[in-house]
């Protein structure tokens, strides 16, 4: 068991290397992609700045606090897309019937599909969010204790697992309906925009969905409450320290759905 797992990890990294080499073949496209993402997120940051210019605060959150919230979500997002961004295209493999090859190789289909791409284009998002984070940290004059840095790391890992989990979950829809890419854009794009703003501005029902069903609240809002010493009328700040736990549980559940989907695919036989 352990040995086969180690072997899978070994093959995974071997394929990652190949994927990186493949992406580096198109240098110009690679660089433009990074520049593009940095522009995209900088644009979103500027939009938040313009929005706050005449109003100063949004439910007690000032500009740099909002940037902190934003940077935290992009930071964990950029970690998760390195591994899982291509999962949204699973429907193409199923429609074309090319998914079969993931089932006949001596590596677990999930690992194999995951190894299809190691998205180094995520560097753009990563650079942007690190920069935004450093700026927000210094503008807000934060001085974190060891405990807070632990919470922060938990939020990063947990956030990456939650968002990766959602990508895995959405891709699994393709096993039953042969659609995933469209669903991905319709769900992920608005939701990721939504969490750039404090959850407390939205109605209670939405807050519950985003906390308990698709746990995006644990990606940035709840950890930010704790890390920025803010309060919320519903959620106690210590919930922000649970991100990693929620991430592990949510990812595990998503993975189970995906594996169920693989079994379903086996039986279609077309």
């Amino acid at each position, binding site marked *: 068991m352990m040995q086969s797992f180690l072997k899978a990890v070994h093959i995974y990294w071997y394929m990652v290397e190949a994927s990186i080499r493949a992406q580096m073949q198109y240098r*110009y*496209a690679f660089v*433009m*992609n990074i*520049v*593009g*993402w*940095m*522009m*995209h997120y*900088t*644009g979103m940051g*500027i*939009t938040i700045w*313009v*929005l706050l*210019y*005449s*109003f100063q605060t*949004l*439910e007690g959150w000032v500009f740099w606090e909002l940037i902190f919230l934003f940077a935290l979500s992009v930071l964990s997002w950029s970690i998760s897309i390195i591994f899982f961004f291509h999962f949204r295209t699973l429907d193409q493999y199923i429609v074309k019937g090319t998914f079969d090859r993931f089932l006949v190789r001596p590596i677990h289909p999930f690992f194999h599909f995951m190894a299809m791409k190691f998205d180094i284009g995520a560097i753009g998002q990563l650079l942007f969010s690190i920069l935004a984070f450093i700026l927000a940290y210094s503008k807000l004059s934060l001085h974190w204790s060891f405990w807070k840095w632990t919470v922060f790391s938990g939020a990063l890992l947990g956030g990456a697992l939650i968002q990766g989990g959602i990508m895995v979950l959405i891709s699994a829809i393709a096993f039953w309906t042969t659609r995933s890419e*469209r669903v991905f*854009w*319709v769900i992920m*794009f*608005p939701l990721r*925009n*939504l969490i750039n*703003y*404090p959850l407390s*501005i*939205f*109605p209670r029902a939405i807050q519950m969905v985003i906390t308990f069903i698709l746990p995006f609240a644990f990606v940035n809002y709840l950890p930010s409450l704790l890390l920025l010493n803010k309060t919320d009328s519903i959620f106690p700040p210590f919930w922000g320290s649970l991100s990693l736990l929620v991430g592990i549980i949510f990812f595990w559940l998503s993975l189970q759905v995906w594996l169920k989907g693989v079994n379903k695919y086996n039986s279609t036989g077309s």
Partner: protein
Amino acid sequence: MISLKGNLRMYLEFSRKSFQRAAAYRFEAWMRVLSNVIFLFMWGFIWYGLYQGKESVSGVTFQTVFSYILISQMLQGLHSAGTPLWDIQEKVRTGDIVSEMIRPYDYPFRLLFADFGSIAFYFITAILPLYSVIFILLKLVIPASPGQWLLFLFSALLGYLIRYCLELTFGLFTFWLVETGGVEDIFYFAISLFSGAMIPLWFFPGWLNTLARFLPFQGIFFVPNSIFVGQLSGKEILPALGVQFLWLVISFLILRFVWSRAANKIIVQGG
């Protein structure tokens, strides 16, 4: 150079066909509505949150801004039903654009009329019923007179055409730049911020507002939206429409110029 070829009927046929096509692919339309409503919802609550404890900001009340955001989302919904930019870029990259060029019609016009068809379908089946219900239920600010309605519709049409010309021109740049990654993001950012799609220009810092007034993008959403909610009224409307019209002429000329150059510069990938 500009060849309508006296054949409006042919172009209208493209509208009719794409209307039918849109009717056949209803799933796409529902997904688009869902996305549109989520964003409407999000911006509605953001503005509500911003206005907490404030009566009016920069002389504008929450009700006015909320109506502005609604009409803006509605127009954006209509714009999104047209041919997406990546579709044009893909045609250029794969070389399929050639089949458009050898046919006896003008591609930019054909595409415009085809978009009219799919937008008409989307408008009738989704946007009109949805937004009528919202406006009536929430008792929001709407134009008070038929004249104001007409001016709004005219301004919205000008805005649509400006966006169409700019976006198609940008799409045609693919003839020269195979990879448009970074430039594309700047372009989209400029459209989304300076058009006033999400944040009305009233709330911009002074210098940014001035800059925005000198760009073509404000004619896309800001001018029609402002007419709709009555922030732009009386004697101010005419100059605003004039500026919109001027930008339409300029962006149309740029489009024609780029298109004529593009037609002479076919580099098909791998060919």
